[in-house]
């Protein structure tokens, strides 16, 4: 069996272009790219890396972001207040809602420019009345990587990353997953992306998977058409316009095709004895296995396949599937080992990709650059073991203050109850706090695709 160090070195070589030259590393780069196994760094060392990265970014946003600077002044906190590790929880947190409260049209472009930290390159936007997609594409043509949550409620979370910050997010999602999947991953794997094609969308959950194309030898995308805010709006609102109805029809047709394509792909890879990996929305695999069960078919991919899921566990309308049942089903129908069926938790607002361990399926937190917190109703941090709102200080975001209160409810434990990794974990399942909005990109996708798998 390959040693862990060789395993990660091989991966690092494949994704060289996401890693800045070592001579340019700042404390945030050190915290993300430095550790071989981000989940096994001794706590003391991890805290040091985390503190240096967060302190660096706090100073950066305080000095280079007017919006955040005045917010900190209002809260009466300056970088000189952050002296030791115990001080970091004083850093002012921005409610995630803030990134959903944007104007339309040309004002949207100015809003994006105003929430951005640091130097803004020239962005040319054409048209009298540009929509969100026009503006984002213009920004991204100038070196930004603006991405957004799919926003079931019609409101997106827009986050302005620069390419450096986006590279970190991509690197971290891949490295954290591959670390936990040790030793099953290797470059020869054939990948199936259960998300929109990253090259055809600015939806964060799709776009952040660009690195998948570098990490494995071949990738197919389940959703291969362009996905933009207009299309999402038309497919979600169910508004009765002719165009919306057309789109919904096309999508329904696409769904059947996705399931059939995946089954064909499984058959081919079984025949060729290939290693495979699925990454993305669990409901698509649920639909695939449902069809396979109906057809009385099954596969045996044991020891040569992995499933990395993310984005929520609503499998069908009014049906949440317990993760354990999902893993069991994947093993029964596809033969994939339950320990290689891992869920991820992350969000467009940050680069902190949490991944389940094989042993206990708890969500491990990448604590070398990311400080997790659970808050009570007065936004005060709670002790381990208490339920509350998930919040974080992300020491890896250069282009916007990644100090955020999320809308998700969870519980944090100081150590994993099952495995021996030293850092903190979240409960295996994270849920949305209020019904203000359905959370999770998989849920958003599921709705958009309105998968035709109901008991019809």
């Amino acid at each position, binding site marked *: 069996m390959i040693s862990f160090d060789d395993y990660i070195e091989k991966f690092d070589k494949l994704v060289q272009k996401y890693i800045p030259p070592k001579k340019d590393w700042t404390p945030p780069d050190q915290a993300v790219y430095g550790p071989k196994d981000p989940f096994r760094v001794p706590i003391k060392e991890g805290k040091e890396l985390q503190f240096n990265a967060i302190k660096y970014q706090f100073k950066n946003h305080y000095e280079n972001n*007017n*919006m*955040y600077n*005045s*917010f900190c002044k*209002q*809260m009466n906190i300056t970088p000189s207040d952050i002296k030791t590790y115990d001080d970091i929880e004083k850093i002012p*947190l*921005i*409610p995630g*809602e*803030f990134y959903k*409260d944007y*104007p339309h049209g*040309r*004002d949207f*472009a*100015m*809003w994006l*420019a*105003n*929430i951005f930290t640091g130097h*803004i*390159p*020239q*962005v*040319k*936007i*054409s*048209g*009298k009345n*540009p929509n969100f997609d026009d503006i984002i594409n213009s920004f991204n043509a100038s070196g930004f990587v603006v991405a957004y949550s799919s926003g079931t409620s*019609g409101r997106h979370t827009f986050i302005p990353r620069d390419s450096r910050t986006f590279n970190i997010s991509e690197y971290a999602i891949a490295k954290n997953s591959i670390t936990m999947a040790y030793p099953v991953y290797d470059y020869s794997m054939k990948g199936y992306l259960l998300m929109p094609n990253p090259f055809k969308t600015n939806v964060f959950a799709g776009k952040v998977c660009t690195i998948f194309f570098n990490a494995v030898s071949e990738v197919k995308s389940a959703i291969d058409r362009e996905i933009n805010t207009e299309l999402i709006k038309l497919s979600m609102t169910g508004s009765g316009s002719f165009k919306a109805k057309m789109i919904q029809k096309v999508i329904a047709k696409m769904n059947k095709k996705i399931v059939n394509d995946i089954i064909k792909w499984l058959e081919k890879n079984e025949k060729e004895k290939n290693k495979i990996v699925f990454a993305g929305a669990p409901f698509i695999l649920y639909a695939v296995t449902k069809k396979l069960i109906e057809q009385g078919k099954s596969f045996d991919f044991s020891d040569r396949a992995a499933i990395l899921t993310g984005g929520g566990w609503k499998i069908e309308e009014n049906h949440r599937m317990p993760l354990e049942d999902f893993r069991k089903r994947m093993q029964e129908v596809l033969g994939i080992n339950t320990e290689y069926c891992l869920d991820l938790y992350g969000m467009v607002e940050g680069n902190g990709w949490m991944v389940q361990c094989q042993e206990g399926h708890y969500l491990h937190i990448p604590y070398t650059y990311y400080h997790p917190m659970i*808050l*009570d*109703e*007065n*936004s005060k941090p709670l002790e381990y073991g208490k339920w*509350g*709102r998930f919040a974080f200080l992300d020491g890896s975001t250069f282009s916007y203050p990644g100090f955020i*209160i999320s*809308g998700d*409810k969870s519980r944090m434990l100081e150590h994993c109850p099952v495995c021996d990794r030293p850092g903190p974990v979240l409960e295996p399942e994270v849920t949305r*706090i*209020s*019904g*203000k*909005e359905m959370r999770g990109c998989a849920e958003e996708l599921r709705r958009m695709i309105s998968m035709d798998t109901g008991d019809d």
Partner: protein
Amino acid sequence: MTSIREIKEKGYIPQKMTTKLFIAGAFSLSKTLLLNMGDLKKLRKSLPNSERYIRPKREYEIPKFSKDMKINNSNEKYLRPTLYCDHREPKVVALAHKLGAYKKSDREFAEGAFELVKEQMTLEICPLNSVSETLDRGTGTCFHLITAFIALCRAAGIKARYKVFAMNVIKAWYDSVVVADPLVKKWYDSMGYFMLEGEGEAFIDGKWVVAHVGPKAERQAAAGIPITKFGEDSIGRWFFAIPGTIMIMESIPYGFSGTTKLLKIIAPGSMERVNISILKQIEKGRDIINKAGGADSYDRMVRMEEGAKKPDIKIESKSQIVFED
């Protein structure tokens, strides 16, 4: 017969501010209508194949009036009958007694009346009418509902009054109610704020306590805001009052129902569409509350979010962002 003195004393003549707002509202409504004659033709009727509004069933019982029920016959300010708000009507008296009039403390009674009106009555856009009709129907505009609350309080010998203001709605609410109908939207947009909104106030233990009875819990949940309780103001949370427009009134003034009457005559389709949208919103809110594990648990979680401060953003123009026509 209403005497001139009564008209003057009880404030039936609109205050200067109300008049100003009325004129602004009427002007902007006429302008909207004139500029949208094409839309208007379509909106005049609910289209035959579109969904119809079905009024929800009343959620509470009104007991029979009996002669031994105590009636408040005071002529003191805030305790006496006013326009559309005669608390001596038998249905009002009977319902007030069911809620514990003259038995419970003023606060307990007002809280009970608040709960009944806010949570068991439903918003429906329709012209103003007597308070008994409103209680009978179980629905009405926020002014019907405030009137119901005020009448119940006065029937129990508790002083009560109106607090009226012009408002700016929060976006979520705007999206579900105002945007539901194109004509209402145009009207709203052309004015920048919706005509008038209000709350009730009851005089409890020497203080005026606010009662925002308009939105029931389900509607608040649909908008993602906390479920407000007796004593909690809607201003700043649910509505943003236009500065300088807050007025305290003993009575609804004359001419107040003009706008809804007008809307009903010229655009009944608009009214129906908004009412359908309100019911859908309630449906959605009910689902949200159920998913959150009940109203209390929903409320706690949302208030958790409200506690956090958000940065203010002043959008400055940046020369790097270039718009090309």
